[in-house]
């Protein structure tokens, strides 16, 4: 299990202790569901985030 409190501390996030206690369980549940999926991604799959360059921004 990830130590979410240490992650928050290392990121210098000012999240009070009781608030961190509240979010640990849902984060851990998401970690359990999500982490195995990342092992299934072929190397050549690119992210679905859209990104556009407008001519005036590219100049």
């Amino acid at each position, binding site marked *: 299990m990830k130590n979410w409190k240490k992650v928050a501390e290392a990121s210098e996030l000012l999240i009070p202790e009781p608030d961190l206690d509240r979010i640990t369980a849902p984060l851990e549940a998401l970690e359990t*569901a999500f982490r195995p999926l*990342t092992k299934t991604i072929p190397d050549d799959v690119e*992210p679905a985030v859209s990104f556009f360059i407008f001519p005036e921004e590219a100049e």
Partner: protein
Amino acid sequence: MTILEAAAALRKRTVSSVELTESALQNAHDLNPKFNAFITVLDDAAREQAKAMDAELSRRLDRGPLHGVPVAIKDVFETRGVRTTCGSAIFRNHVSQRDAAVVEKLAAAGAVIIGKTGMHELAYGVTSNNPHFGPVRNPRDPERIPGGSSGGSGAAVAAGIAFMAMGSDTGGSIRLPAAFCGTVGLKPTSGRVSRYGVMPLDFSLDHMGPLTRTARDAAVTLQAIAGFDPRDETSSRQPVADYLPPADASIRGVRIGLPENFYFDRLDPDVNGAVRRKAQVAESLGAHVIPVRVPDIGAINAVSRVILLAEASALMEKYLDKRDQFGADVLALLDQGRLIPATDYVNAQRLRRMMQRDFAQLWRRVDCLFTPTAPMAAPRIGETTVQVGDQTEDTRLAATRLVRGINVLGLPALSVPCGVDRRGLPLSLQIIGRSFQEALVLRIAAALEDAG
């Protein structure tokens, strides 16, 4: 009365826009203490617009079915000179200097905007139990939530105040209020309706669409608001179709997929029965109901949560030093998002690409999917857990389980009423279509409505 009935009455001069609007405004004021559907009611602007629309009709200038019809918009759509709160204390006094694209299009179509509806704080939740503006209540049972985040829009339509109310949907926020309040709710394809001028929750998951009393009313609204907008980077140039189903809408030969996995796995038994009965009705109308196995929706939901947590927290990070300005549930989500690593966000967007490809395979076999919208009817206000079948679940996760993945895939999805449970609370069918096939989804819903 529906939008199309009102439109016919306006053209026959049996009613005027001023009369419809006065009635809507009166209802908005009379019913707001009970349902809290509106954050702002626009009395003066609505009266002025209604008079102008009557004058145009008398000169035979006709803008289409929404001409002179009173509607409402969620308080997430920016309106020039009128505050847009996003249901948040942070934006309580935010007055925009621009109109959202949807507001511009509704005005061009002649709609009369009577007010801005209540919502879950920042559109980030499913209850619309708002700590800053008070809970929105479900007109079908005021002790229950209307769903969210577009809860005020669901309540305004279900209470008969507005003929249509616009919502936004990042993980079910149009479809859930529609389901819990017993209205129709349409989440169009990604890029179909401009997001310009809508206060964002999530850059890549937000969609805009209407809540209405009928599928045909949703169709005429979509007709008015759809189309390319260069101000929205994700706006599509796909041509706008003719969305209004004909009077004799046929679904003969349409292939309806009925999922064998996930969607019917954990439901209130009343929901299960109601959705399956609608599939039987569709079959009796000539559609082919085909059992299908769908890709791993649980995995798609996990991807959705990573993307939403990360993007919403990125958006709101600059306000997070004002922790007392957020409700506890929203703050908890925003805190979670700050702990998602960048690598997880990127990989979630890569998984999204894979899942879109996997899901596309389905459309070789079927034209649409029939699923429940929510696994249960509307929970009571304040309930943080709900009983679904024999399991107790977190209310937010249970409510969004069958809807949130569709935002990741960007597909159109329509929530339509499909009966009531043993307590008389509305239940809902979700019709999911291929990209830009809103016309078919709406035709299927109209045929089911016509069949009674």
